[in-house]
């Protein structure tokens, strides 16, 4: 009974630094600079619909590619011997320990007009291609930064799939394709939905990747929010409205995919 008191400092902290700030975002989103209630910030989002759709489009593409690449990788790792699984996982996680700014910077080096890839292609008299400052480069940056977030949850459910279930299906005449669609994918549902959330959420809200690899012409919703708070077009009210819209998108995606496989929550 007494030990409940121990959580009071945290509950106060949580209210001041988590609940109130989110309340402030909502408050700013619906007020003018003089503090009057308004919908104009939300209505002003109309001008940024293209940016919003671009953010969603890019992150959906990145999430799908991460899923397609992540499935075979995770399955392969999950079927290795125990010790090897650990090593392979470490190989996948290791790049995540390097700050994402450095990882994204590395791609700038590779993709530039006279970067390494173009110089390499130049040896065969091909190119130079315009590899950076386009939508493809931004999506590539998202995939590169967040694909481990797809592989990890997939691996953690796939490693629990009993090999004998797969063998039983094979014995009963299941083809390779049907083993994937009828056994592996259904049993990995939970990992797939967790992976989709953990790749989609940071992708749709990023503002650095688009700035470093998109060259200013591929601004995403994160860039616009950032510029409302720190950039030239300072307007925290509009910025808050955008943050609110972004939050709604994230909540929608999460409820959609959490429902999809919520039998047991894995964190």
């Amino acid at each position: 009974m007494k030990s409940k008191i121990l959580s009071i400092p945290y509950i106060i902290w949580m209210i001041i630094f988590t609940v109130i700030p989110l309340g402030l975002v909502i408050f700013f989103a619906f007020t003018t600079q003089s503090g009057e209630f308004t919908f104009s910030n939300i209505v002003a989002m109309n001008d940024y619909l293209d940016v919003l759709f671009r953010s969603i489009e890019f992150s959906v593409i990145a999430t799908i590619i991460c899923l397609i690449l992540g499935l075979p990788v995770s399955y392969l790792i999950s079927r290795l011997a125990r010790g090897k699984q650990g090593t392979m996982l470490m190989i996948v996680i290791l790049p995540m320990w390097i700050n994402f700014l450095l990882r994204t910077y590395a791609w700038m080096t590779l993709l530039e007009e006279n970067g390494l890839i173009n110089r390499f292609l130049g040896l065969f008299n091909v190119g130079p291609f315009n590899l950076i400052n386009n939508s493809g480069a931004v999506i590539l940056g998202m995939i590169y930064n967040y694909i481990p977030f797809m592989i990890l949850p997939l691996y953690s459910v796939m490693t629990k799939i009993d090999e004998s279930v797969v063998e039983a299906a094979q014995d009963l005449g299941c083809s390779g394709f049907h083993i994937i669609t009828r056994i592996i994918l259904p049993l990995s549902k939970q990992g797939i939905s967790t992976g989709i959330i953990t790749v989609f959420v940071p992708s749709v809200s990023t503002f650095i990747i688009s700035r470093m690899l998109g060259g200013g012409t591929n601004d995403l919703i994160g860039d616009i929010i950032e510029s409302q708070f720190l950039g030239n077009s300072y307007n925290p009210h509009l910025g808050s409205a955008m943050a609110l819209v972004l939050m709604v998108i994230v909540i929608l995606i999460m409820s959609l995919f959490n429902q999809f496989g919520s039998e047991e929550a894995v964190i």
Partner: protein
Amino acid sequence: MNKILSRTITSIVIAFLYIPILVLIVFSFNASKSRANFTGFSLRWYEKLFHNDAIMTALLNTIIIAIISSLLATVIGTAAAIGINKMKPITKATIMNVTYIPIINPEIITGVSLMLLFRAFTVYSNFEFGFVSLILAHITFNIPYIIYSIIPKLRQMNPNLVEAAEDLGCNARQAFFKITIPEIMPGVLSGFLMAITYSIDDFIVSYFNSGTTVETLPITIYSMTRKKVSPEINALSTIIFIVILAILIIRNILSNYKLRKEKQEYLTSRS
């Protein structure tokens, strides 16, 4: 055929993950400033890195902020976890859901929402953006990781242990420090390490809450990347990569060694 395909994809993904890092490492030893021409081996950029005051100050700031915020988060979070564990299911679920917010919320929203709060502070008091705002922000996103790594340990703990200690003459405080704390210590430690890592690595939340006077390492890195050519970044990445690689390899060797030892003990105990 299936196996060949998945092996090929895995190799491609791993190459994809490592090629950019390898390029950074190779070019950190480049004699010239070029990011595309390797003109000769040199340690010039490492020397420059260690003489770069901005980077060294930022590194120090990062370490100070990470240690202070992780320690405070660990104290608040550990106490919170113990209290939450004793609550009624409904209260517990509510608090855990709010605790989950900083983990799942896009970082940019955590960043701007705290910025709005701190800006309100500056209006109503002489609060300023800087060390304090950074530490407060870092504690806020660190506490949930601490709580989530301790709660499972509390759940696994045998509740009779505390009662037994009390029956044997411990008072509540002694039982707490002699039973509860040692039992949950692995969770506390792993939460603390996670907090330190997240704190050192954080860019987005810090970016919105650092103000103009204090820079952490990721913020300095960001301003360097904007200049396009800064070979010191390559040197810095290489050092970070090698330190992390060393830590992980040592950890892996230790855990393998522990596993083998446990297996041996198990086998000898059975024979």
